[in-house]
């Protein structure tokens, strides 16, 4: 049953995403792509989840912990870099106009 709920959310998200990005002027395509890519780094929450619970409490091998820390590192680069890069692009646009 949970699977059906999850698919419901997924289906709604498809329509929401489609509605959000229709009729976007061409100049904004690149920063929009970059900004939404940064948001896709939400997997950072997943990485924090496994690092804070499963991986840390169990007395097990080191390498899954390293993999999970690597995942957190990658996701953080994705998120932080993505937002900063989008900000720089948008600042450039604004500079051109004025």
């Amino acid at each position, binding site marked *: 049953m949970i699977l059906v709920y999850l698919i419901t959310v997924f289906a709604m998200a498809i329509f929401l995403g489609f509605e959000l990005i229709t009729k976007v002027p061409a100049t904004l395509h690149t920063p929009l*792509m970059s900004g939404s890519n940064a948001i*896709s780094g939400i997997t950072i929450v997943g990485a924090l989840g496994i690092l804070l619970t499963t991986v840390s409490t169990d007395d097990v091998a080191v390498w899954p912990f390293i*993999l*999970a820390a690597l995942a957190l590192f990658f996701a953080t680069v994705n998120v932080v*870099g993505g937002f900063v890069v*989008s900000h*720089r692009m948008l600042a450039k646009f604004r500079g051109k106009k004025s």
Partner: protein
Amino acid sequence: MTMEFKNVLVAVIYLISAILFIIGIKRLSKPKTATQGNQIGAIGMLVAVIAAFIDFGLVIDASNNITFATSYWLYILVALLLGSVVGVISAIKVQMTGMPQMVAIFNGLGGGASFLVAGVYLIFELSKVAGMSAEVINTALPVNVMVATGLSGLIGAVTLSGSFIAYAKLQGLKIIPDKPVSFKFDLVLKLVLLAGLLALSGVLVVEPTMVNLYWIIVAGGLC
């Protein structure tokens, strides 16, 4: 604070973060509000990370004592800090003309993180129920979890390799030919590969213990 209250609180904070993302993307799509939209998205992410720390980092027992879930705070904070520093530096240093390549790399790293998260989660959930009956294993790793795990592995791997190939093309690296590589039946081969990987994911859903299958799916996705 009771455990129940914490769960509700966390769910509400996640909801706020999701709303911030939606408003952020909406504003990003109009020239006037685009910069603000990007900032709202970033705030949404910060809110989500705070929620994750409360959600997974704090444990509340029956007598309402709050304890930390992990003693590895240092490593987690170091990974967060290093990721932020690398992200900011590479985003600031990159030339305007190099931005699409940079975004491709960021995107690829996100995909890599995604399949690593799903893989490590699977390993640990399995280690908890190792040697127990199939019923216990299937309760620990129900169909919805396994569908999400399989898809994360597949999509994450495709994102990683696809993004790095996109990077190589944008950068004009010689290792990747400019023209699309095509040969007889290449579409057939791709479709067979995709169908095979989806079938393997299906098997993984039914038999979560076959953790090696997960890495085969990831490797196949990288192709």
